[in-house]
């Protein structure tokens, strides 16, 4: 093998490295297409509690509360309204406090989850980022309303569990998501509040990490155990090919030096 072949080989490796990093850079700059950042102007208070009072005077059943309309009213989007709304609900409900609180809890958690994230496709980093910002309000509500702090703490816990779990799933599907700026922001928020996200790494990342950490025994063991015969053969071919290239380059260099001498 001549020196030129070695240059071509190294150039190809360089191109691959550049392509790899350019892909990462593109990911950093990529703006999510389905941006639905919470617009404060959009918050409406169209849910008519007065009408609800009138309706409830005819019936004392909590079920007449139009949860569908309430969740579509955007009123829930500002957590400051939630204590007021819950109080109003408690006034008109004939049920005991616990049942009404439980009903409201279920509304703000399970029912709202179905509305915001009806399927897996509706989950995106930016949407989770918005939800996370909204959810932080529950921490203040729990401190503000000490008699119902368990409910607000549980609402916070429910949503943070959902956010952390969803981000872990997204990380498993897209290994490059860890370079997304919104993902990183959420990573910090979740970690600092004891809801850590699981970061998934691909095999190359793991290999490099173990190599740099000098965990050679672990690396060898894991590679041997987790690769099938095709992979083992491929590793052997690449290794042999690289070794041959180095030997050729070295002998070529030696020849040049000796010929000059």
């Amino acid at each position, binding site marked *: 093998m001549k020196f030129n072949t070695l240059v071509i080989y190294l150039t190809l490796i360089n191109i691959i490295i550049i392509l790899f990093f350019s892909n990462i850079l593109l990911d950093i700059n990529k703006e999510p297409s389905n941006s639905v950042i919470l617009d404060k102007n959009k918050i409406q208070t169209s849910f008519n509690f007065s009408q609800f009072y009138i309706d409830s005077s005819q019936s004392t059943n909590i079920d007449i509360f139009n949860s569908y309309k309430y969740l579509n009213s955007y009123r829930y989007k500002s957590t400051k309204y939630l204590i007021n709304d819950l109080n109003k609900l408690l006034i008109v409900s004939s049920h005991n406090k616990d049942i009404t609180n*439980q009903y409201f*809890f279920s509304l703000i*958690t399970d029912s709202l989850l179905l509305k915001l994230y009806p399927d897996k496709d509706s989950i995106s980093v930016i949407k989770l980022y918005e939800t996370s910002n909204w959810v932080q309000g529950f921490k203040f509500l729990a401190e503000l309303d000490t008699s119902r702090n*368990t*409910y607000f*703490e*549980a*609402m916070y*816990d*429910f949503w*943070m*569990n959902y956010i*952390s*779990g969803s981000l*872990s799933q997204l990380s498993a599907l897209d290994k490059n998501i860890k370079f997304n700026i919104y993902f990183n922001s959420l990573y910090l928020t979740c*970690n600092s509040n*004891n*809801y*850590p*996200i*699981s*970061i998934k*790494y691909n095999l190359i*990342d*793991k290999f490099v*990490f173990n190599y740099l950490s000098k*965990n050679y*025994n*672990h690396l060898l*063991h*894991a590679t041997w*155990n*987790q690769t099938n015969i095709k992979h083992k053969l491929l590793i052997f071919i690449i290794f042999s090919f690289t070794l041959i290239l180095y030997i050729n380059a070295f002998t070529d260099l030696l020849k040049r030096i000796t010929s000059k001498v």
Partner: protein
Amino acid sequence: MHLQTCLKELPLKFKLTILLKIIATIGNISFITANLYCQYNTQFVETRTQVIQGEQYSIIKMSREDEHVKVKYFAAKDYLGNSVYKRYLDWSKDKNIILYTSGTYMNDYDINLALPEGICVDNGNIVNKVLQAYDGLAIVYQTGGIAVSNIKKGDLTISFDGVKKKIDLRNALDRIEFFKWAQGQNATVFQTHLFYFMNSLLINRNTSSNKKQERRFFAVGKLNGRTTYYIINLASPNTIYDATVKVANFLTNFEELEEITFILNLDTGAQNVFQLKTSEGKIDNRKSFQGTLPINNALNLLVYYYE
């Protein structure tokens, strides 16, 4: 000379009594010395390797009889930031260690950034509140015992001021109460995969991972009515389903357990830390009783000791 004459003059019965007393004293001294020197009594801890159908099983069997064998779990760094490794070194100074192994999984490859996955509380200090899909929740008591609950059953019973309450951790309201209880009790809790519970296999071949790797389990069962702990390591690559079935069959057919209380999975991936000590306190050099990473790579440690 004087002693010899004295002994000669003594009656035979008296001589025999002195001889027996000397033998008994030597026996007592050697027993006490052996106990001081030994890390653990092999009557309660048995280690062996066994090959069954070409598969090598490395088995550590520990009897809970008289509660000599105890468990300690280091779930994460402490609030001062001391690593699990440092915490273990400080704690183990006056302990007779049987073995240590990594416990549950970690959420990042970098040990400096990583945290344990799933619900995790360390001595009342909440580390992770995220409920993972793993079924097993292990509660390690200060007394050295361990209890495991199947999260999917939702029947974890905890006591609040003497009042017992059933907790379903899948419910956020119950989770909040559970964390308050764990903080109040200085409890140590971790979540991991539960593959066998109360004689029932919980893992499914079709839905479980096909990845083949070394596998390690913590199993608890009843042998002759007594609680027995097992750490079983399968060093050759196995899928998680195959390994669980093999271990369950081994416990039923070879160990003849009356009941398999549970089988928990232990991490052999990013933190494959495992070491067994001999009864003399030396490191057991058998390769199948060793992990591939040193102890300072452990984010959490499950330690068995003898007291």
